[in-house]
């Protein structure tokens, strides 16, 4: 584990330097670290944000400046972080959170699947095989980011891996399901983006009127359920 500064008011706690070769294990350690730091309630911590291999710890330096020595702000913070997460990476520790399994209905209608042919030719598959493979796998949310509620999902069958588009689209409709490299994800909002689009969900992945505002959180297990265009339209309502 290393603790490194991100500017003058944030520390990044890196628990691993790799993700792809041990995604599940790394994610579990990140989430345990995140949870233990939350429980520790270190004075001056404004918020915590997990990503693939690390947890960012955002501080209010004025609070830390009063608690520790003002010329050694981060030393004090790093000490508190180390104490809070001691033993977090021990092998055999149980999972931090019972991962939820969330099913997401996806319509793979050609109108929504603008790039399914590119994905198919990349993996030498038929369109139907792309849909079958994509909807049969179980995924895990590695982290949320890019736009509010956007889940980066790991666990996609390797044959579906497709490089991002050379020229990103300026507008992608909310709910679009895409493939970017080895990951799949869902655009929660109307936004620009460079992933290959293969379907669309009628679910709302981000709703600021709810708390938490995002349907998914890091660590969740996700499955896609194939729905027809009619089901899409009725669920959308």
């Amino acid at each position, binding site marked *: 584990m290393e603790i490194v500064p991100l500017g003058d008011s944030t520390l990044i706690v890196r628990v691993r330097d790799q993700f792809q070769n041990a995604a599940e294990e790394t994610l579990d350690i990140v989430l345990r670290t995140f949870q233990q730091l939350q429980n520790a309630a270190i004075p001056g911590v404004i918020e915590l944000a997990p990503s693939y291999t690390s947890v960012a710890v955002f501080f209010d330096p004025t609070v830390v400046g009063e608690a520790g020595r003002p010329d050694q702000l981060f030393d004090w913070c790093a000490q508190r972080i180390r104490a809070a997460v001691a033993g977090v990476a021990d092998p055999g520790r149980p999972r931090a959170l019972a991962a939820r399994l969330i099913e997401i209905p996806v319509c793979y209608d050609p109108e929504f699947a603008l790039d399914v042919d590119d994905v198919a030719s990349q993996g030498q598959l038929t369109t139907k095989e792309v849909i079958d493979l994509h909807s049969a796998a179980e995924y895990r949310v590695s982290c*949320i*980011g890019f736009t*509010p509620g956007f889940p980066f999902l790991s666990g996609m069958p390797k044959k579906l891996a497709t490089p991002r588009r050379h020229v990103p689209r300026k507008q992608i409709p909310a709910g679009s399901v895409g493939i970017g490299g080895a990951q799949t994800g869902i655009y929660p909002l109307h936004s620009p983006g460079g992933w290959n689009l293969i379907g669309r969900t009628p679910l709302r992945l981000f709703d600021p009127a709810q708390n938490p505002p995002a349907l998914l959180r890091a660590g969740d297990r996700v499955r896609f359920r194939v729905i027809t265009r009619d089901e899409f339209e009725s669920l959308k309502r």
Partner: protein
Amino acid sequence: MNLIVDRAGFLTSVQDLGRAGYRQFGVSLGGALDSFGLRVANVLVGNNESAAGLEITFGGLQLRFTDERVVAWCGGKFGVQIGSTSLPPGHAARLQAGEQLKFGQPQIGCRSWMAISGGIEVLSVLGSRSTDLRAQFGGFEGRTLRNGDQLRLGGSRQSQPSVTERISHRTAPHDWILPAKRHPILRFIRGLDWNRFSASALQSLTSEAFTVSPDSDRMGVRFDGPELKRQDSVDLISEAVAPGVLQVPPSGKPILLLGDCQTIGGYPKIAYVITVDLGIAAQLRAGDHVRFSEVSLADAQQLLLEREREFERFRVGLSLQDS
């Protein structure tokens, strides 16, 4: 109790100190790009420092109130008029019901922050009244203001500042109220990926000027100028980013992240602009020439703590005068 927008100007939005606590769900911090400037303006009008005010980009705003209010603003070098009287930055002024206040075009810088006694009373969404323009929620209908909009204001507190004159003589330190610079220098500390860059890139960063590109916005300032080349080509794993991060995409043209930046990113981080200089960064406009100058992490934190101590003295001083 209302603010009436006669002309919305180029880009005006409701902002407070940002939406902390939701980065784990991908929600940007947002808020006033110079949150310190808004805090100063707020305490000048007797508000809680976190009250919602207006962020005004490139001026053109004209507004009035339906009752008497005290206002103050900080930011770029704008001409601001109440009727035929000009209102300098960092001074509280009393506006009668119906009196019009106008923001002209900025001579230096591009943004300013205006506080209104009582604050702007839009609904708090996820703990903040800021407008998230990218995700289109919060603030006033999740959007920039338009001509004719009417915004509800909070009740003016009993402890309104005693602005007996039309414009108060009290003011804040010059750097707080007018951070825009003709020749901006941004102080930075080394980023996590500093060593991934070539010696000539590091030399360029500290010795050459970078030009602000027109495609800059609330997410970040993009620069033209020297290309910052890496000496490795390792693909980095995405991790947290925050306002102040100076990241370098494969083009070699650096991007300085501002308040509406994404929560995670995978570009190498060559440097971080220090928090006390983010107010200068928020004033950068297309064509500005910017230089970067290195400081230590300890110095960056000292400067921040010192400014906070001075701000606290300033805030307490004002409230003593008003009590």
